[in-house]
C-alpha cells in the first residue's frame, strides 16, 4: 500500500470515526441536523460521481432521490412492508429508474443532457402529483407506526429513537463513502475521469464510453435513491416537494461548494450549506439570498470547491 493510499484511508476513516464520536457530544438539535446532513451528503455523493467525476451535469437528480423515497415510503405505507424490505424496494426503484433514464438521456451530451434530465425529473414530479390517491401529492404521507420499528441482525430497533437514526444514517454514509472511494481509485474511476476530460479521445483508446456512462449513472442514481429511501423511513414522511427542482439543484450546490470530483467534497459542502442556511435563516427571511451570494463568492474564488482548492494547494493525494 502506498503512503498516499494510507493517508487517504486514514483521512476518510477519521471523518467517519469523528462523526461517530460526535453523537455523544451534540445537543439534541444538532444531533438531528447532522443526521439529515449525513443522509443528504449521500445524495450529493451519488450526484458527484456523475457530475464531479464523469463530467455529466444532471439537473434531474431529485427524481432518483424521489424514486428511493416513494419506493420505500409507498411500500411501507400501503403494503405494510418492513423497514429493511421497504428500503430495498426504494433502492430497486432507483436502479430501474436510473437504468431507464440512462438509456434515453445518455444519447445526448452537454446542455441537451441537462435539459433531458430536467424534463424527466419534472415528469417524475408530475407523476407523483397525478397519483394523488396513493401519494397525497404535496400534502404527503406520514409513515405508519408499523414502519417505525424493525429487527436488524436480531436487534429490535426503533426509528423514533434519535440515536438509532443517527447511526443508521452514519452506516449508510460509511458504506457509500467506502464504495465511492474504492470506485474512483480503481480502473473504473480512471475511465470516468478520462471521459470527463476528453470523451472523443477516450473512445479511441478502446473504452465503451456509453456503457461506462450508463454504469456510473445507475450507480449514481441508486446511491441517490438510497438517500431518499433512508430519508423517508427515518423521518417518517414522504411528499412531492422532495421531487421538485430544488432537490435537483441542492446536490449540485453541495458538490460545487465542497469540491466536485473529491470523495469528501459533497459531505463537506452539504454540512456547510446546511448550517449556512440554518444560521442565516435565524437573522433574515432572505436567507436563500445570503446562501446564494456566499455560493457565488466561493465559486468565483474556489472554482473547484473548498476541497478542490485544498487538493491543488497542499494535498495532491486527496481522492
Amino acid at each position, binding site marked *: 500500500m502506498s503512503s498516499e493510499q494510507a493517508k487517504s484511508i486514514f483521512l476518510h476513516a477519521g471523518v467517519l470515526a469523528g462523526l461517530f464520536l460526535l453523537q455523544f457530544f451534540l445537543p439534541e438539535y444538532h444531533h438531528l441536523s447532522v443526521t439529515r446532513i449525513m443522509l443528504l451528503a449521500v445524495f450529493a455523493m451519488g450526484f458527484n460521481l456523475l457530475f464531479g467525476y464523469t463530467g455529466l451535469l444532471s439537473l434531474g437528480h431529485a427524481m432518483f432521490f424521489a424514486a428511493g423515497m416513494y419506493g420505500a415510503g409507498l411500500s411501507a405505507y400501503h403494503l405494510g412492508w418492513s423497514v429493511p424490505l421497504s428500503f430495498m424496494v426504494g433502492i430497486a426503484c432507483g436502479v430501474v429508474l436510473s437504468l431507464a433514464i440512462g438509456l434515453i438521456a445518455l444519447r445526448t451530451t452537454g446542455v441537451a443532457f441537462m435539459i433531458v434530465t430536467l424534463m424527466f425529473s419534472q415528469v417524475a414530479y408530475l407523476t407523483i402529483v397525478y397519483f394523488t390517491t396513493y401519494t397525497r401529492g404535496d400534502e404527503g404521507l406520514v409513515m405508519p407506526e408499523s414502519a417505525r420499528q424493525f429487527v436488524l441482525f436480531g436487534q429490535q430497533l426503533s426509528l423514533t429513537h434519535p440515536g438509532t437514526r443517527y447511526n443508521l444514517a452514519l452506516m449508510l454514509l460509511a458504506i457509500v463513502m467506502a464504495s465511492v472511494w474504492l470506485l474512483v481509485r480503481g*480502473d473504473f474511476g*480512471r*475511465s470516468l*475521469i*478520462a471521459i470527463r*476530460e*476528453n470523451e*472523443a*479521445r*477516450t*473512445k*479511441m*483508446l*478502446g*473504452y*465503451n*464510453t456509453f456503457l461506462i456512462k450508463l454504469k456510473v449513472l445507475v450507480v449514481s442514481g441508486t446511491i441517490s435513491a438510497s438517500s431518499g429511501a433512508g430519508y423517508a423511513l427515518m423521518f417518517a414522511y414522504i411528499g412531492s416537494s422532495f421531487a421538485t427542482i430544488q432537490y435537483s439543484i441542492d446536490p449540485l450546490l453541495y458538490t460545487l461548494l465542497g469540491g466536485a470530483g473529491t470523495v469528501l467534497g459533497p459531505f463537506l459542502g452539504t454540512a456547510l450549506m446546511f448550517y449556512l442556511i440554518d444560521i442565516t435563516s435565524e437573522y433574515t427571511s432572505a436567507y436563500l439570498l445570503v446562501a446564494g451570494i456566499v455560493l457565488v463568492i466561493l465559486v468565483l474564488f474556489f472554482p473547484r470547491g473548498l476541497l478542490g482548492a485544498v487538493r491543488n494547494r497542499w494535498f495532491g493525494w486527496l481522492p
Partner: protein
Amino acid sequence: MVWVVAMTLLSARRLSKYFGGLRAVDEVNFELETGEIRAIIGPNGAGKTTFVSLLCGRLEATDGSIIFENQDITGLPAFKRARQGIAYTFQITSIYSKLSVRENVAIAAQNATDKSRDAAYRVQDALTRSGIPELADEIAGSLAYGHQRVLEVAMGLAMSPKLLILDEPTQGLSDMEIEQFCELVSDINNTATVLLIEHNMHVVMKLAQRITVMDRGRVLAEGLPEEIRRNDAVQAAYLGS
C-alpha cells in the same frame, strides 16, 4: 526452410466517405502488410485524415468494407477496433491536458491488446520507449508542443497496438525532434505495423517502405519510395516540381 509470406494485416475495399456532395474518400482500395511502415501522402484536403478515420472507426464509412486480420470490421465501433489493436493518434493534439503524463499513458494502457505484463510496467515501458520518462509527473497541458506530440505516440504505444496510425505526427516539430521521432517510429515498428500520414518528405523517404499517394479522395499512386519519386502524375499533383 522458412517461407516468409507477406501477410495482409488490413485491407479496404471500395471504401467511401461522402460529406453531402463532397467525396472525401472515393472508392479506395487499399492493402497493408503486417510489419510494414506505410506512408500516405497527398495535398491538403486529399482525404487522408478522413480515410484513416474510417479505418480506426472515428468516422463511419458511407460505403465499402474494411478487413482487419481476416475479420470484417466495417461495422465495429471505434472502441472495439482499438481493443483489437488499431491505435490512432489525432492530427490535432488530443491529450488529457489537465492530467499528468503518467495518467495519460495509464488511461491508454488500460485497454491494451497485450496484457501479459501488469499495467504499471506497460505504462513505464511506453514512457521509456518514447523517451519521456522524466516527464511522467508533469501535467500534460503544460508540456512543450513537441513533447505533447510524443505523448500522443506514447499513448498509442501503451495500447500495444498491431497497427499504429499516426496522423501528421511531425507537424510543428523542430528538426532535432523530428530525428528523434523517426527513431521512435522505427522502434515502434519492431512490434507494430505503422501507417503514417506525413507531409515532410524527408521523414517519408527515411521511414516508409511503401507510399500511397492520395488526391481528391482517390489513390493516385502506390509503390516503393523510388517509384513514387519518379512518378509523373505524383510530381504534377503533389510534389509540384
